[in-house]
């Protein structure tokens, strides 16, 4: 019985050993497979001298050496690691800390390729003895992409710096230009002041003296002398009107008044009854009342509309009654004021010209400086409006201005 037990025990111990050996060899196998297939380099070193006892295929391929060329050497003796890893230092550190880690080792492979690796050594127990396992990971690609990233970052930083410089440059330029513009405006103002004062003074003198000559020495002049003096007077008068129109134009150009609702019905009525030009028996006005309210400013609109009306009554055929019709046409956001006359009309090819300075399509046949519509156009522009016309030669003219409609309250 005891014997049986002893045998049984023995058997059991054998069995246990067998199982453990089998288990061991199974784990040995799977380790081996990992070792062979690993996509990191693995070196196994003996712990006493740090000589290579095993090397996996990945590392052989990475460095370009066969296992035979590496086994039996210390890491320091392998040419890729030479001068970088001191075998002794590594062994000492391993003994002290149990592991050594080099984060970024620059290596050169057998064929001269530069690569970067992460090198980690651990001491661990394999069976009854300690071994060193070194894991070597190729980090060249990571390095490169890191480098690229850092280059990109540097480039972005530089680009943003350049951008900032440009922005500052631009800001400065805008400031300088604004200053220049302001000084130009100031100069223009000073100029128009000079024009109004100094250019007109000699004209007053010419007119004054011819007038004095005509009146004070009336008995001395014959018809011819009177005619000549009269011509001097007329020329001075005309130049004065030109200067005044220029001044008005420059004033209208720089005037920026707030736009408010303006009652056109009253405004047009005032202009028609108050301006002497429109009190003529040969003129007939038809206003389709009430005219709509528009956004603008009263002084600007008075200028614009009186100019348009003056234009409408100016270009008439001498032999017939000039009829002018005025009405408003409401659009979605705007109101169009129409002024229609039955005058000589304007050839469509000249439609653009008439809003320019000093343009009079019909030459010298009619009075004026050709500034009236240019002033009106400038004035309308200043009130965020537009101006235009429909006309054909010989069939009258329909001038219009279009202005913003006040919001309904």
């Amino acid at each position: 019985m005891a014997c049986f037990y002893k045998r049984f025990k023995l058997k059991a111990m054998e069995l246990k050993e067998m199982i453990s050996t089998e288990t061991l060899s199974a784990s040995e196998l799977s380790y081996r497979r990992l070792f062979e297939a690993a996509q990191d380099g693995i070196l196994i070193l003996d712990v006493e001298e740090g000589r290579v006892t095993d090397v996996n295929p990945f590392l052989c391929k990475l460095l370009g050496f066969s296992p035979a060329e590496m086994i039996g050497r210390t890491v320091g003796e392998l040419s890729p690691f030479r001068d970088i890893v001191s075998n002794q230092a590594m062994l000492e550190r391993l003994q002290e800390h149990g592991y050594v880690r080099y984060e970024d080792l620059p290596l050169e492979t057998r064929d001269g390729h530069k690569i970067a690796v992460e090198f980690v050594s651990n001491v661990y127990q394999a069976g009854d003895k300690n071994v060193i396992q070194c894991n070597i990971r190729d980090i060249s690609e990571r390095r490169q992409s890191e480098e690229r990233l850092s280059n990109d970052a540097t480039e972005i930083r530089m680009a943003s710096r350049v951008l900032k410089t440009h922005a500052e440059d631009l800001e400065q330029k805008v400031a300088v230009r604004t200053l220049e513009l302001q000084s130009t405006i100031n100069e223009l103002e000073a100029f128009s002041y000079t024009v109004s004062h100094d250019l007109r003074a000699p004209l007053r003198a010419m007119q004054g003296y011819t007038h004095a000559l005509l009146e004070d020495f009336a008995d001395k002049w014959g018809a011819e002398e009177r005619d000549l003096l009269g011509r001097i007077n007329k020329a001075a008068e005309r130049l004065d009107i030109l200067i005044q129109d220029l001044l008005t134009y420059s004033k209208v150009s720089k005037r920026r008044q707030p736009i408010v609702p303006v009652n056109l019905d009253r405004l047009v009525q005032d202009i028609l009854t108050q301006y002497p030009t429109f009190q003529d028996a040969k003129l007939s006005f038809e206003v389709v009342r009430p005219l709509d309210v528009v956004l603008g400013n009263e002084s600007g609109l008075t200028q614009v509309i009186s100019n348009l009306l003056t234009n409408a009554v100016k270009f008439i055929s001498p032999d017939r009654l000039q009829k002018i019709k005025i009405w408003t046409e409401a659009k979605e956001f705007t109101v169009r004021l129409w002024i229609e006359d039955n005058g000589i009309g304007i050839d469509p090819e000249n439609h653009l010209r008439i809003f320019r300075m000093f343009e009079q399509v019909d030459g010298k046949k009619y009075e004026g400086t050709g500034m009236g519509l240019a002033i009106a156009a400038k004035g309308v522009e200043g009130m965020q409006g537009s101006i235009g016309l429909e006309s054909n030669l010989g069939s009258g003219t329909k001038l219009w201005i279009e202005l913003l409609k006040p919001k309904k309250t």
Partner: protein
Amino acid sequence: MSAPSHSILIVEDNPDDLFILKWAFTRAGTPNELHHVENGQQAIDYLAGIGPYHDRSIHPLPSLILLDLKLPMKHGLEVLAWIRQQPAFRGTIVVILTSSSEDKDVSRAYDLGANAFLVKPTSAETLTEIVRALDVFWLQHNKYRVPSLITLNL
């Protein structure tokens, strides 16, 4: 008309404008006594009775001042400001007669106490009408404060 003769001080630097203005007064037939200075400083000196202007029998205080704006030495607006600072001249009629029709000048002039603002007309006929109207309105119909009743406080 038996209206009293008022003296008018013309402040004008342009000899042509001065000639025509005087001519217009003659044409208008107004009984006014005309005095003349050429720049802003002279205008102040005249009114203050300083230097060559100390004799009031030759340089009487004016009832009306025709003041140009663009003047040498002192601008017309400075002269106007000075006039209105003197209690003695608060009732003196100051009419601006200038080439400028700048809105800026017009409002500054009224701010400083001008009685009227006239733009020099090109036509001598119009000017004649203007000086006649000035005399009729400001010096005949308008109730006028005599400057000599107030002591000059300079």
